[in-house]
C-alpha cells in the first residue's frame, strides 16, 4: 500500500516539474510582456498545485498533508490574482507592445 502511494506521488511530482519546465521556457521564448505573463502565470500555478498534491499523497492522512492542502488553496487564490493585478496596472500605466502591428492601426 505504501509503495503504491509513493509511486503515485512520484508521478505527480515529475509531472509538476515538467509543467514548471514549460513555464520557464515560456519566459524566454516569447518576446513581449503580455504573452509572457499569459503563458507563465497559468503554468506556474498548475505546476505548484500538482507538486504539492503529490507531497500530500506521499504523507497520507496527517498534519503535513492538511497544511499542504491549506497551502494549495492559498496558492490557488493568490497566484493568478497576483498576475492579474500586475497585468492590469501595466495596462493602466500605459505599457504597450512596440513591435505589435495592431497598435499602429489603433493609434491611427
Amino acid at each position, binding site marked *: 500500500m505504501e509503495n503504491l502511494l509513493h509511486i503515485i506521488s512520484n508521478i505527480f511530482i515529475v509531472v509538476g516539474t515538467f509543467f514548471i519546465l514549460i513555464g520557464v521556457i515560456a519566459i524566454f521564448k516569447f518576446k513581449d510582456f503580455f504573452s509572457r505573463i499569459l503563458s507563465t502565470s497559468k503554468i506556474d500555478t498548475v505546476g505548484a498545485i500538482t507538486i504539492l498534491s503529490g507531497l500530500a499523497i506521499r504523507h497520507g492522512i496527517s498534519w503535513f498533508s492538511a497544511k499542504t492542502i491549506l497551502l494549495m488553496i492559498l496558492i490557488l*487564490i*493568490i497566484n493568478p*490574482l*497576483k498576475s*492579474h493585478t500586475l497585468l492590469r*496596472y501595466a495596462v*493602466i500605466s500605459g505599457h504597450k507592445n512596440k513591435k505589435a502591428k495592431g497598435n499602429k492601426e489603433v493609434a491611427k
Partner: protein
Amino acid sequence: MTTTIMSFWLFCNIFVLFQKKLLSMILWLFLSSIIASLGFLFLGSPDVAMAEATASAFVTIIFIVCFENFFGIKNLQNFIEEENSKTRENIFKKIILPAFVVLCTFALFMNFLPQAPQDTYLKNLYILRASTDVGGQNVVGAIYLGYRVYDTIFEALLLLIAVVAVVHLSHFDGVYKKDGKQSEVKNNAISLFTVRIVAPITVLFGIYLIANGAITAGGGFQGGLAVASFFICRFLIFDIYDIPIKKVNKLEDTIFVAVVIMASLMVFHGFFGEIPPNYLPIAQNIYLFIMNLLIGIKVACGFTILLYRYVAIERN
C-alpha cells in the same frame, strides 16, 4: 545545496550594488533578502527565516511609502532619470575596484576568523537542559524567554524608543482629512476580493504562530509582525486612517511594563529560591504562553503605529 543557495544570494547582492535606478535596486534587495531567508532555513534556523521573510516585505513597504511621500509624481520621474545621466563609469572601474577593496578588507579580517572547530560545550548545555529549566519544546524560544530574558526586555525598550522617534519626527497632529481620492486597489474588484481574503488569513496565522511559539518554530516576534501586516491590508482596502494612535501608543507602554513585571517575577523568584528554580511544567508553559502573547501584542502595536505614521505623512 546550502553553498549553492548562498552563492545565489551573493550574486543577487552584487546586482544590488550595480543598479542605477532606485526602484530596481529595491526590487533586487527584496529578492536577495528572500533568498537569504531560504538560506537561514537550510542553516537549520526556521525561526530566523520566518522573521527575515516578514522583514523583507516590511522593509520594501517602508522604502516604497518613503518614495511616495516626498518625491511627488513628477519629481520622482526626474529623480529616477537623473541618476542615469549623472554617474557614468566604465566597467573596469565598476567591477575591478569594488573587488579589490573587498578582497583587501577581507585579507585584513582573515586573521580574526576561527580556524579550528569550535568548542560546543555551551550549545550542548542549552540543548540538553532547556526543556527542563525553562520548559517548552523550542530551544530558541526558551533562550530568549528564559536564559536571556534581559535581551528581550531591552529589545522591547528599543522598539518603544524607535516608535517614539518616528512619532516625534513626523509632524502630524492626528487629524486626517479625507480627500475624495480612492486608492487604486479599491477600483479593482478582483484585487479587493483577494486582499479581503488574505487579510484575515494573515491575522489567524499570526495568532497561530504566537500560540504555538513554545512548541514549534515561531513566537512573539514573528506572530506580531504577521498581525501588524493586517493593518496594512486594511489600509489597502478601505483607504481610511481612523486608528486611534494615542490609545495604541498607551497600550504599547502598558504592555511593556507588563513584560518587565512578568520577566522580573521569573528572575527574582530564581534569586530567592534554587538556581535554576524548579517550576512545575504547567507553570512553565503558562509563563511561556503569556510572555509570547505580550511580546506579540507589543510588536504588533509598535509596527502598526510606525506604518500608519508613514501613511499619514503621505496624505498630509
